[in-house]
């Protein structure tokens, strides 16, 4: 079997009766070192996270400690922590399970992070379409407040903190950190011009740290167990463990927590391998916004650096796996339809480019693409890539060129024949569709 072991940390006690309760979390050491950590000099907390090498789990992998250290000190302005729980990336499903099963680790992370960045107000911005985690985090905040971990003079340390849980209104772009801040301020969610960066002028023009749920949830474990322990997992440039959410044509889709550097082959093994009687066609390491990879890359370590080397990105670290029943044309068209729908409209390349590309792909999906359009689409993607206002445009420009690299013939086939003729929609279904609903 695999050489890399699963290392349940965040997911360790998810099989407890009610892992989300404060009692369950405390019985596993949760909040036990909170007071001590609140009595540590904030700069030392920042230094610990810096030394741990923790990188942001929201997709970009930015070093977390470094981000915190950008917050100006003694500037007389309020500071804010905003937890990005807008998880809307196609294929990404890790933050929502974390919030459902281990909300208190998130909250303890919030408290510790606020202490480090000298914030007295934190916001948890949760994707609006998912009421369960919103309810659960609300409940957890109430429990933590009742236990004296949130509120005035926490555990007698003199530290005050308020935590607000905010439900979004349903836009992928509101996961982009500056659009999220606008949304939180009650404005229309569109990304802001940077600089200034949120660390200097974020929420209400005050220094703000925006971090992903998984990033913040990792914090209490690092603080409790130390830098050396954390660096014991993963690689030099990608230290630590990660919550991998494997989905698609595998036998046991789900959450697997393992160190960075594990390979897709190993993760596939844990997930029970490809569906019975099928074989791997392509996979994406972290959501629809990263280029696809094939079986050739199964042994590449899943780290930030190796994935870039392989021509993709680690992204959210939520691999999507597709077997040979999948039409690449249809998969790409779905994603582009998503990006077109979610484009905020602010900048020309993304707004118009996704409109155009999606329209063309829908023609391919219908079996009446034109030959010149196969390469024209790459040009259109290049006209978006690196020219759009925010990374959503780049994300929209990513799937097609990657797909064409490995599966060009599927697009040329679609000049004459609808992909549905070549790839039976029912064969690719993981969950059989109700009668009458086509794929």
């Amino acid at each position, binding site marked *: 079997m695999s050489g890399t072991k699963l290392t349940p940390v965040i997911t360790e006690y998810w099989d407890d009766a009610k892992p989300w309760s404060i009692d369950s979390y405390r019985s596993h050491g949760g909040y036990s070192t909170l007071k001590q950590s609140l009595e540590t000099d904030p700069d030392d907390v920042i230094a610990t996270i810096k030394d741990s090498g923790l990188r942001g789990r929201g997709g970009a992998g930015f070093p977390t400690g470094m981000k915190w250290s950008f917050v100006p000190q003694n500037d007389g302005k309020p500071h804010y922590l905003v937890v990005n729980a807008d998880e809307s990336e196609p294929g990404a499903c890790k933050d929502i399970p974390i919030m459902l099963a281990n909300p208190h680790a998130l909250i303890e992370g919030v408290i510790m992070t606020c202490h480090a960045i000298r914030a007295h107000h934190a916001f948890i911005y949760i994707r609006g379409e998912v009421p369960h985690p919103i309810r659960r985090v609300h409940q957890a905040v109430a429990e933590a407040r009742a236990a004296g971990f949130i509120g005035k003079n926490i555990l007698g340390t003199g530290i005050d903190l308020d935590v607000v849980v905010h439900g979004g209104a349903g*836009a992928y*772009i509101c996961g982009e950190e500056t659009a999220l801040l606008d949304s939180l301020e009650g404005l*229309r969610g569109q990304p802001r*011009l940077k600089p200034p960066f949120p660390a200097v002028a974020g929420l209400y023009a005050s220094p703000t740290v925006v971090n992903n749920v998984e990033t913040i949830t990792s914090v209490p474990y690092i603080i409790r167990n130390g830098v050396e322990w954390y660096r014991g997992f993963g690689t030099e440039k990608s230290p630590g463990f990660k919550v991998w959410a494997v989905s698609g044509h595998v036998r046991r889709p789900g959450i697997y927590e393992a160190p960075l550097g594990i390979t897709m082959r190993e993760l596939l093994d844990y997930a029970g391998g490809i569906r019975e009687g099928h074989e791997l066609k392509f996979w994406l390491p972290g959501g629809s916004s990263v280029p696809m990879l094939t079986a050739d890359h199964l042994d590449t370590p899943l780290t930030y650096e190796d994935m870039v080397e392989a021509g993709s990105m680690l992204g959210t670290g939520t691999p999507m796996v597709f077997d040979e029943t999948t039409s690449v044309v249809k998969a790409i068209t779905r994603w582009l339809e998503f990006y*077109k*729908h*979610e*484009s*905020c*409209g*602010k*900048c*020309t*390349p993304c*707004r*118009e*480019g*996704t*409109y*155009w590309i999606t*329209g*063309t792909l829908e023609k391919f999906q219908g079996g009446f693409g034109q030959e010149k359009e196969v390469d*024209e689409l790459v040009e259109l993607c*290049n*006209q*978006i890539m*690196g*020219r*759009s*206002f925010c990374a959503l445009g780049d994300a929209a420009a990513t799937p097609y060129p990657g797909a064409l690299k490995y599966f060009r013939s599927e697009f040329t086939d679609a000049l004459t024949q609808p992909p549905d003729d070549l790839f039976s929609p029912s064969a690719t279904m993981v969950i059989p569709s109700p009668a009458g609903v086509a794929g």
Partner: protein
Amino acid sequence: MSTTSHEATGSDTPTVKMITGTIDGTDVTVPEGTMIIRAAELMGVEVPRFCDHPLLDPVAACRACLVEVEGMPKPQPSCAVPLGDGMTVQTQLTSEVADTAQKGVMEFLLINHPLDCPVCDKGGECPLQNQAMSVGRPESRFTGQKREFPKPINVSSEILLDRERCVSCARCTRFAEQIAGDPFIALLERGAQQQVGTGEEPFDSYFSGNTIQICPVGALTSEEYRFRSRPFDLVSVPTTCEHCASGCSMRTDYRHENVMRRQSGDDPEVNEEWNCDKGRFAFPYLQLERLATPLVRENGQLRRASWPEALRIAADGLAAARGRTSVLTGGRLTMEDAYAYARFARVGLGTDDIDLRARAASDEETDFLSGEVAGSCGPVYRELESAPAVLLAALEPEEESPIIYLRLRKAARAGTKVFSLGPFASQGLEKMAGSLVECVPGDLATQLDQLDDETAAALSQPGAVILLGERAATEPGAFAAMSRLVQRTGAEWAWVPRRAGERGAIDAGCLPGLLPGGRPLTDETARQEIASLWGIDPDELPATAGRSLAATVAQIHADAKAASEAGEEEEFSPELAALLVAGVEPDDIPNADQFLTALDSVPFLVSLETRPSEVTARADVVLPVAVVTEKSGAFVTWEGRRRPFGTVMPQPTSFTDAVVLALLSDYMDLATPPREVDDLRTELGNLGAWQGSRVSPADVPAGSAQQPGSGEAVLASWRYLLDLGTMQEGEPHLAGTRKPAVVRISAATAAANGVEAGSRVRVSTDTGAITLPVELTEMAENVVWLPLNSPDSQVLVSLGALPGDTVRLERGDV
């Protein structure tokens, strides 16, 4: 305000750090913070752009301006990245990356654009069209279905929106938010469905027309201009707006003999690149019924006459009334025409009865304008912008001088504190984040004297400014009180009239006792200077100060009374035997009835007018004169800045007031005065600043507000920018954007008078009544505000009352 010349404002501005970068291989040195796109412009490189606008905060949304910056992995929006010291930039001229990036964006911009240029107002002057020509592909690769919207939709009665043409540059919405402060439009929806919309707030802005001008496509158009012309058929002339003393630079576009549209000119010192909707859209009045020929009265009826006949009758009548004529010039003349009147009155008519004010005025104000304002220079727009604090007294800039409002709003966004002495915090004051110093009409002088220490301290900072509006004329003691406040704080100050011609006419000497160039009539040196300029003996100038408009009206009534008492047989010689009236609208004058009966009873009335009016209807001789587009001249802003403009459409058959006065002089066998604009301007200019002593304003005691009894209130009122002004006639779409007339009273005053939210209020005097819906407003108690000259609310005419007077108040719908 000071009478010495204006000190240079540049000297104490902090030194700007200069940096040097390289664009397309050439070094360029610019002030730190200059965006790459601007730096490139300076060296003659034009980078394409849509969302960029130099007066709006950058958004970097359209991505048309991408350039390559050394060391940056992606092409950068040159409109939002400042040139750095040592930075190396390559534009489309030298960088393949920049060139393809720009071309890609251009191609994208066109896929959802309807390309209906042949029927689009912007066609021919459209940045999208132009840049598509230079950056776009000859043929589109896009073959899909374009996004469609119903077109066009009204965002107001004047402004139309064609969403298909919109390129989502957000210039209009940023203008609304950042400049005007009226969030009447916003971007809605997302992706390709993103569109400009009006949201929930009703459209409400005096500056909406600017959005048409800055829209880089034809998405925003006006009802007034839509489909009326193509830009290449228009002749454009730089002009100055005739509507108010803000003094906007404008561009007037005409075709054949009609003005087609007016746009804001670009003058960084005055209106920057903006103007108000009145200036932009209120020009159709110029083409309404004009007086085609002179008219003379025969058997009680006006009939057409030739110029020689009419001039003969006018000249004889005026000559017979020499020394007994009064001249009313109105506030709309150019400085040069006003000067011609000032001279003609003294030389041609032997009178000092001359008044430019067709509005509420006072003797106290006459002294103030003569002694302190005439020929002076005070703070200018830039100083408003840099002032730490500005106090507004009897002035609502958004309604009465819109460019002052825009400048103050810009200043306030950068930290200037605005205070206003008024009965309530107006919308304009709120948009300037200003503070109200509550002041009931009639109480201004007292309030100026008793200004709280905090506000006074703010005004004591160097560079602070007090702006006193023309409505101060109805506030007893206000001018003296302002002088005291200036003494107390050391603040700069300026007086702000509403009409475009007032300040020029003051400088030109159209006030009793005031000769041109700020020279007092009673000063020997002044008399000598003026007499030698006019080629007469100083003794020929009137000896004592003449009559104001109010005194003129009173005299005519006194004469009429004396005449009726004298009986039929007696030979009666009135004190005032003739009136010479130019551009006066009787409804603007308090007690318009009395004014009109004076016009009826004065023995001889000569009217110089552009259109038939209530004055021409009563005149013995009517002499038609040129409208603003047919002549050149200058208006003078509230700052004292001359704003010369040229003739838009020369009309050989129409004469300026100055030319007509010169003709009258000829017919009166007087020496011909200068009649050409240049000569008049030179003559007035040669006079130079007056260094001698000036009229010292009388120390009028500070007035205080009246104490209304039960069922009564003190009247507060001013004009909305868009109202029943005659120069707004003929443009119904603009009229559709007027603010609705309401009565404002406080909740307590309402309760005390049985008025509830939603009910109507009747405001009345012995003269008449006005009934309007109530708008409960946080304001002083026992004060009632209503617009001065709006539909259903003509305060002067219907109530015969002025601000500060006591009126009756009751529920109006019972």
